[in-house]
């Protein structure tokens, strides 16, 4: 995983090279003509400040569409703010306390986490399996790889419409099939667990292939020598998968988990359109009203912008909290994975009495350390 901006690694080298260049120039500085000095001044200006100019667009855009709304939402959240009426009285943290004691808010959090767990866990397991399959020597590799990505290309609205139809309680494909096998129809849209399962299915359908491809890329970066030497040592396919492939793709796995978490916390389209005709967004009894859907309902149906903003902020804090936990966990896992990866080839090297393999093992450990900084 190379998440570092390219500038970070090439930077030190560049900085080292540059200062040596001006030294001879400096000696001749008093010999320069006015025009040359002028040019010299601009090139120094260019050297010193251009980098900031190059990165500025991102920060300006971020300040405009990221930071400002974030702060403004906080301002809204500490006011009694009506959608149509606009700003009202300053109420301090009243909106927050009102939401924290609202059963509807907690219900939305429960739904969000439930749908997240139901989607993330099977999704990652299946994605890893698919990636492992695609990592084999297959005919028509590109065809298979592109095939798993197809669901990702379809817009979530279309996915939801199709699944919503299939999961219809009275006329849906799935309940019709169940009835063929004499199974009672399931209340996909009006009971809690089945509806979460149905929504998680949509999420999985869309994201599994995408994650599989990312994991596949990581698997392909695992040195084949490791597999070969393990095979020579008599490790079977399963053993190699669990002892070599999985530990090696750990950083990528963590990346996939983090993005899945962020996406999972913000799920909106699927529950919103799952039962589009429902008068309450997220099911008649809010069976699958996720937090983002809840805050949308608060803002645009009930017109309470203040409380909706408070919910938005609390969701923001929850995502940050989960992000921090993820970060700490990933640091711990990554460093322990590194130790193990460093140890294993050395041990194997001793046993096999070869020098080439420990070297490659060290290379790998080195590569990983670089990636994590």
């Amino acid at each position, binding site marked *: 995983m190379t998440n570092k901006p390219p500038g970070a690694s090439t930077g030190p080298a560049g900085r080292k090279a540059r200062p040596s260049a001006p030294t001879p120039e400096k000696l001749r500085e008093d010999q320069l003509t006015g025009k040359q000095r002028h040019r010299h001044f601009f090139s120094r200006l260019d050297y010193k400040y251009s980098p900031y100019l190059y990165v500025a667009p991102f920060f300006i855009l971020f300040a405009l569409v990221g930071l400002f709304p974030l702060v403004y939402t906080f301002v809204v959240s500490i006011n009694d703010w009506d959608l149509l009426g606009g700003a009202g009285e300053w109420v301090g943290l009243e909106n927050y306390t009102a939401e924290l004691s609202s059963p509807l808010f907690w219900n939305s959090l429960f739904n969000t986490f439930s749908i997240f767990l139901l989607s993330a866990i099977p999704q990652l397991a299946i994605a890893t399996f698919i990636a492992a399959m695609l990592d084999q020597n297959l005919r028509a590799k590109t065809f298979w790889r592109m095939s798993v990505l197809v669901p990702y290309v379809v817009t979530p609205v279309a996915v939801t419409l199709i699944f919503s139809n299939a999961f219809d309680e009275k*006329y849906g494909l799935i309940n019709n099939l169940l009835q063929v096998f004499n199974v009672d129809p399931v209340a996909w849209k009006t009971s809690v667990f089945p509806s979460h399962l149905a929504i998680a299915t949509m999420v999985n359908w869309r994201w599994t292939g995408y994650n599989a491809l990312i994991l596949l890329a990581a698997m392909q970066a695992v040195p084949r020598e490791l597999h070969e030497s393990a095979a020579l040592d008599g490790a079977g396919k399963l053993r190699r998968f669990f002892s070599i492939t999985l530990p090696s793709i750990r950083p990528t796995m963590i990346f996939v988990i983090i993005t899945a978490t962020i996406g999972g916390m913000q799920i909106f389209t699927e529950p919103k359109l799952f039962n589009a*005709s429902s*008068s309450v967004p997220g099911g008649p009894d809010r069976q699958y009203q996720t937090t983002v859907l809840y805050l949308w309902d608060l803002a645009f149906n009930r017109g309470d912008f203040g409380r909706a903003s408070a919910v938005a902020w609390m969701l923001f804090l929850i995502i940050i909290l989960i992000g921090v936990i993820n970060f700490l966990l990933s640091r711990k896992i990554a460093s322990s994975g590194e130790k193990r990866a460093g140890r294993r080839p050395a041990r194997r090297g001793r046993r096999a009495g070869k020098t080439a393999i420990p070297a490659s093992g060290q290379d790998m450990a080195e590569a990983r350390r670089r990636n994590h900084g």
Partner: protein
Amino acid sequence: MDITRTSRIAKAAAVAGSLALLATGCGGNNNATSEQPASPDNPITLTVTTFGTMGLDDLYTKYESENPGVKIQATNIDTGGNALTDWKTKQAAGAGLPDVQAVEEGWLGQVMTVSDSFTDLRDYGAGDIAGQWVDWKVQQATDDEGRIIGYGTDIGPMGLCYNADLFKEAGLPSERDAVAELFGGDNATWEQFVDVGKDYVKASDKAFYDQSGFVWNSMVNQLDEGYYKADGTLNIEGNTQLRERWDLLADAASNGLSSGQTQWDWGKGQAFVDGSFATMPCPGWMLGVVKGQIEGAGGDSTGGWDFADVFPGGPANWGGTFLTVPATSQHPAEAAKLAQWLTSADSQAAAFEVAGTFPSSLDAQQSEAVTGANDLTKFFNDAPIGKILANRAEGVKAQFKGPNDSVIQEQVFGPATIALDSGTDGQKAWNDALATLKDLDIK
């Protein structure tokens, strides 16, 4: 992990940000100043936002050809609920509102809290023509300062849609007038409706009406005061009139009268053609919806659906629309002219022929187009729909709608009626509704 951290912040900010951006949109500019009339030399485009089935599409073309220089850009939103969200979002942003905005009766409570953001149509002659509508329609569109902010299009007097074939199979009278008598004619009550329903269920082993939501809305809409008292205070807890009707509805649902269909979905229209239910409370505009549902499911006029001149519990009105001119319009005079034309007697009669939207214009109600035969009457077994609706409109009273009327209807009693349909007993469903009312913090 720089990239992931940034995207985490960016994504979280996007959620929060989308809200804030909408809240910070600048206010609309108010230029009711002198305005050049549209002509081929001064072409203008008027945007119109409507919802549901309003039957205005052909009228736009006609207006464009009669008024060179005017181009109409129309947007139609599928349901009133979605249209309400659309309007509120744009109203809050202060931008994006069309020149002519259709406003539903149910929104009026909220619309009136910001009535000054609509053009006072008296500036464009509304006062002179107010007599062309039924009086309560104009009263509804008048705010507490006497400004008229909307021209009435349709009203929603209610009759009873029923399936004659299914009635016949169950041994009930199937002929239109006999059906009206069966439910009690002019003195039809909900009690009698439920009794007939029980007979039907016994004889046919099928449900009697599609789902309890529409029945409940009808029951509430025909009361003198609904979820709010006329003085604007909430009127649900301890409202015995409301509670009696709720218990009756619970009795009906527990006896299998409800088919438990999904509102506005009906299994993509399937339920209208497969005999799932035999009756439905139908305001005038619903006839266009029913026709669309049946045709969408592959059915046609031979399916047995008919329209009876009777309604339980007395005259009732559900919905009805106004055309307003938001103050953000750049062409208020042209927009008001278009709104006035679209709601004229002739236009209302034309819209009725297409969509069954019953006119609020007195002249239109008497016109040949409304009382005569058309596509809709043919579809409903040659029922004289216009005449029936004119009868149904008599004695209708306009009910005061409070600021949260639509939230209460959709989020408090919507789930409660679904609960009734799925077997919850009336007492529990009512208590749950009151609990929801409390959770939603509606005052």
